[in-house]
């Protein structure tokens, strides 16, 4: 295997919810709760090889978006390191900021990710101009070439975001990211807010651009159908931890971790014969609060295979049959697939 492009090494990201006035008074007199800390991402290590697409999958609160933002250089990790081709993504120090231009992000909501008061052309051009990827005098042509690349006419550049539909805006956001000539493209739920018929257009565009430009992708999604379609490898996350990591084909065909299995079973699949025969088998229970995750394996309260050890000891991510999974009973369970 070639040198990885992106390395996430032991990344932890916490968010502290500040106490409100009442709680602060309560904690002064010793009755209140301590500061509430959410471990959005806990000790996650991942690598992405050049030209590979890794998908991060999980439900809300699993930390996939936070991890994506750490990789994108938007959040600085509290622990751990993020490097791109050996160089750090963010500076260190009191106010860390992103120092590489080789990672770019496409955000979920194209209605929020484009500055409503800036012309589309200016939005696309400002990054490349600021980083000397293009001369200001050439920027119009440069922007036009990227707009064409994402299937939009050049005159789009002089208009404002509100004049476009969701699908067109997402194309503009993709053009903005690609105009920075990144090696790694982070796609944070890029099609989740689009209509079904538009989703396919944008997914096809992303696949085409990935191939033509030789991009490496970190693809964040809750939609297992989309993930299966676009990714080479997949990392399943649950409450801030990666619970399973492997090639997409194998993971979908023979999931190891009970959560992965349950997640795959939960997805309603199109029953075209109308039999509705494949009954959905929902996971019991709710997602626990990330403020107070259960001890041991975070999934143990909902897991049908949980044993005493799962309730006390957090499983490590260990290799199992060419993949890695964090489950005490991985070997046993693999035999039952």
């Amino acid at each position, binding site marked *: 295997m070639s040198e990885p492009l992106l390395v996430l090494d032991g990344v932890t990201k916490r968010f502290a919810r500040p106490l409100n006035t009442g709680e602060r008074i309560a904690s002064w007199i010793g009755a209140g709760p301590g500061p509430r800390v959410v471990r959005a991402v806990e000790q996650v290590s991942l690598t992405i090889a050049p030209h590979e697409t890794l998908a991060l999958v999980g439900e809300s609160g699993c930390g996939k978006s936070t991890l994506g*933002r750490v990789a*994108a*250089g*938007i959040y600085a990790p509290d622990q751990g390191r993020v490097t791109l081709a050996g160089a750090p993504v963010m500076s260190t120090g009191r106010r860390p*900021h*992103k*120092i590489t*231009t080789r*990672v*770019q*992000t496409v*955000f*979920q*909501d194209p209605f*929020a*990710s*484009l*500055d*409503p*008061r*800036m012309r589309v052309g200016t939005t696309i051009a*400002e*990054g490349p101009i*600021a*980083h000397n990827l293009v001369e200001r005098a050439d920027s119009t042509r440069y922007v036009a070439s990227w707009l064409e690349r994402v299937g939009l006419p050049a005159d789009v550049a002089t*208009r*404002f975001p509100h*004049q476009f539909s969701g699908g067109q805006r997402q194309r503009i*956001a993709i053009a*903005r990211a690609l105009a*920075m000539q990144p090696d790694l493209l982070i796609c944070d739920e890029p099609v989740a807010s689009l209509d079904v018929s538009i989703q396919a257009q944008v997914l096809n565009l992303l696949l085409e651009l990935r191939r033509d430009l030789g991009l490496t992708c970190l693809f964040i999604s809750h939609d297992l159908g989309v993930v299966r379609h676009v990714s080479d490898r997949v990392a399943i996350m649950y409450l801030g931890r990666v619970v399973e990591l492997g090639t997409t084909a194998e993971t979908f065909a023979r999931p190891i971790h009970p959560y992965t299995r349950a997640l795959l079973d939960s997805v309603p699949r199109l029953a075209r014969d109308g039999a509705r025969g494949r009954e959905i088998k929902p996971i019991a229970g709710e997602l626990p609060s990330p403020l107070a995750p259960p001890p041991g394996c975070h999934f143990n309260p909902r897991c049908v295979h949980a044993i005493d050890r799962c309730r006390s000891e957090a499983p490590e991510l260990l290799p199992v049959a060419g993949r890695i999974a964090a489950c005490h009973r991985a070997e046993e369970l693999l035999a039952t697939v």
Partner: protein
Amino acid sequence: MAGTPIADFWAEFRANRVAVVALAVVLLTVLATLAAPILVPQDPYDLANLTLRDARRPPGYVGTAGFTHVLGTDAQGRDLLSAIVYGLRISLGMGITAGCIAFAFGATVGAVSSFVGGRIETIAMRIVDLQLSFPAILLALVLAAVLGQGKTQLLIALVAAQYAYFARTAHGAATAERHKDYVEAALSTPLPARTVILRHIVPNCLPPLIVVATVQVANSIALEATLSFLGLGLPPTEPSLGMLIANGFQYLLSGRYWISIYPGVALIVLIVAINLVGDQVRDQLNPRLRR
């Protein structure tokens, strides 16, 4: 609906007749005050032009200088129309200047404290809150009394009394904007923080600030008039509208109504017109009032 946001904005503004008339009044006033030296018959600040023989004459009186005093004369024998136009010039000039300085200073305080955060934000915003809990007139009165008369002193008093409104608004808007995706997108490009603030956050904070600005210009004018009326404003040799009203006040009961009433009417018309424009701007910029 294609077009720039400004073109769309104007198209919507035009639909409200009252606001258009009010805007015309404001613009005409501005033009008239700019062209004051050629428009009015007399320079009211040149004491050599004044003679007490013309003092307190009613509207329509033909004075010693040979022209008709359309609105009469004041206690010093000034042509009242000239004095009002020049007074408006001072009022508008002070109001707009104070408004602009308060805008720039307040918006900077608000936006920067929102972006810097931490203790600086807390301290700056608590000072602003403290100040907002007093009526602006109180602070302006105290400052004007302490600093004394003069244009600079008055400007300081007006700005100090009003920047807090801008700071509060800018802080709220900037805090809301900086967590939006487009700011994150710009920061993750990466663009320098300064560029992100100036090119993305500030333009998106402008709508609420513009609303505050129109209201505050009107308030500045009223505040200046109040201070001048109380004798704390500009020197009496250059009477602003407030001082004209104050000067005429003692003659009101003796039937010489014009010395107070006409400057008063001019002041009210100007303030109401600015507020009507401001209302329409607010309605258009506030998404919650939209259908």
